[in-house]
């Protein structure tokens, strides 16, 4: 009652609930219901799903590879994204807009475009592979195999993850009060120290958020990897895809793997949200 008397004018909570309801209904039916089915399927199998997974070497290798891929892709994307964002922040607005247009392109690309582009560049007969062979004598077979490993996948994933990082960090850097850096330099700090002592501590929160977000995306995605290497690399989402497409697989195990994968992604992103909000 006290609350009702308080915060808002009449056309408040009720109207908003009504306006929100179609969207919430859609999410309920086409997001939470399907996930609920996955959860139900996993639960229906009792402990069978989880025990099968835990006993499976493939699962543990897949988990290790996925986490490795997530961390590598995130490290690479955040490092490159930070460097690019730092450079963009120093540009005049027009130039920055032009660069941002180019950099944002991969954001809406289908993962397939990225995959095929990398096959053409870094595949066994790829442009870069053959160039390296001609220039440095690099073995094309070994080189292209590296591209199809978790390390190589991280390099490919960075193609559409780095833009996310750039888009998250650039506004922060553009709005950063650069007089702070000038002040530190006037006190005798070197350029590196200025970055390390003044800029980076203040960038920590958005950087952690960005890191967690792109790591979670990299851990959960399968499209690009499927197009690039088929189901040859053992990462969790591809493992799950294989089980899902195979009519004969055990639903309880498949569903449990799905829940585990979703839990990992949620957890990674949750940590980022928490750390980002905490500052």
């Amino acid at each position, binding site marked *: 009652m*006290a609350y009702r*008397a*308080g915060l808002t004018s009449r056309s408040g909570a009720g109207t908003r609930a009504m306006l929100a309801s179609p969207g919430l209904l859609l999410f309920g039916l086409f997001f939470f219901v399907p996930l609920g089915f996955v959860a139900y399927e996993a639960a229906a199998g009792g402990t069978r799903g989880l025990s099968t997974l835990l006993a499976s070497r493939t699962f543990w290798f897949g988990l290790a590879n996925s986490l490795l891929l997530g961390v590598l892709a995130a490290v690479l994307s955040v490092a490159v994204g930070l460097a690019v964002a730092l450079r963009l922040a120093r540009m005049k607005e027009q130039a920055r807009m032009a660069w941002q247009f180019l950099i944002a392109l991969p954001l809406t690309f289908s993962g397939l475009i990225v995959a095929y582009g990398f096959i053409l560049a870094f595949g066994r007969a790829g442009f870069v592979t053959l160039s390296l062979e001609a220039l440095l004598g690099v073995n094309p077979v070994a080189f292209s195999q590296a591209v199809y490993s978790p390390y190589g996948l991280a390099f490919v994933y960075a193609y559409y993850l780095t833009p996310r990082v750039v888009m998250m960090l650039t506004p922060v850097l553009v709005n950063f009060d650069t007089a702070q850096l000038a002040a530190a330099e006037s006190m005798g700090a070197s350029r590196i120290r200025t970055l390390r002592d003044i800029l980076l501590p203040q960038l920590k929160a958005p950087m952690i958020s960005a890191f967690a977000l792109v790591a979670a995306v990299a851990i959960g995605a399968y499209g690009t990897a499927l197009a690039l290497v088929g189901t040859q690399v053992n990462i969790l989402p591809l493992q799950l895809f294989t089980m899902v497409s195979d009519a004969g697989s055990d639903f309880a195990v498949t569903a449990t793997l799905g829940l585990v994968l979703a839990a990992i992604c949620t957890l990674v992103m949750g940590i980022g949200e928490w750390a980002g909000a905490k500052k």
Partner: protein
Amino acid sequence: MTLALENLHFNYPGAGAGVRDISLEIRDGELLAVIGPSGCGKSTILKLIAGFLMPHQGVIRIGDQDVSSVPPRKRDLGIVFQNYALFPHMSIAENIGYPLKLRNVPTAEAWPRIREALEMVGLAHLADRPPRSLSGGQQQRVALARALVFRPRALLLDEPLSALDAAMRGEMRDEILRLQRLYGIATLHITHDQEEALSMANRVAVMREGRVLQVDTPEALYARPVNRAVATFVGHANLMDGEVLAENRVRTPLGDLACARHAFSAGAGVSVLIRPEAIRPVAAADGVNRFAGTVTRNRFLGSLRRFDFALSGGAKLMVEVDHQVAPPPAIELPPEALLVIASSS
């Protein structure tokens, strides 16, 4: 129409802030300023009157009508928001015409009124421009015109000058006053700027921590503040702790002083106030309320000179004198200017 608040109470859920026991009356044609530090509840009062918040207790009256449970859109109040809240996708004329459109005023009748409102604020030549292309002062005028064009029953101003630079502020003060007088409309003016409040308002309500401490004319507020908080908030003040000895004597860290007559009983803990310009420079410390000392910080401020006077006992007083007066060897605190007031509310 008269705007009246009776015993308003409001608490924000889950927070201690809010307002308590607010009773104010703003008569037709009167401008009442509500002044206080941020967080004192002055904006809450405006939101309560506007209807954006609902009071937990109390009554809001416009004229004879109790509007406490009337929705904001039916209260007929003109509001000027802090950041003007002009609609960015409408031209200046469309902004001003919007309340008329909502009231289904026919175009033939609306246009002359829009034109008149535009001319009144001197912006007729900018009628078709979008709000963003105007300066802060011009946007402010549009906001005023929009708030007045539909002949509201009262006008609410929410820190209307805080987004303007100092030069523009003076000009807009006069402009707001001119229009307010022209319309003869009851006006509530929320501000944190004491100079603004004192120079514009017929009466000023000083607020702190959700309560109104004093409502009075600017002159009375300065000359007879009810307590220490009001005294510090309005103008410069020398304030000391004191203990009442008699109806015209008070004990202070400076010693026992003669003071203006007051109603406190002997033994009461009070505050003792004297304004810097009431202190008189004298040649020697020979007589009632006279003290020798030295001038420490001597500031020339154009027509006047403000200095700190360090007494031999260690106390310091701020003194304002005519700029031609030389630093004196002693000062006098005239008893009639030495006010005994409450320490707190």
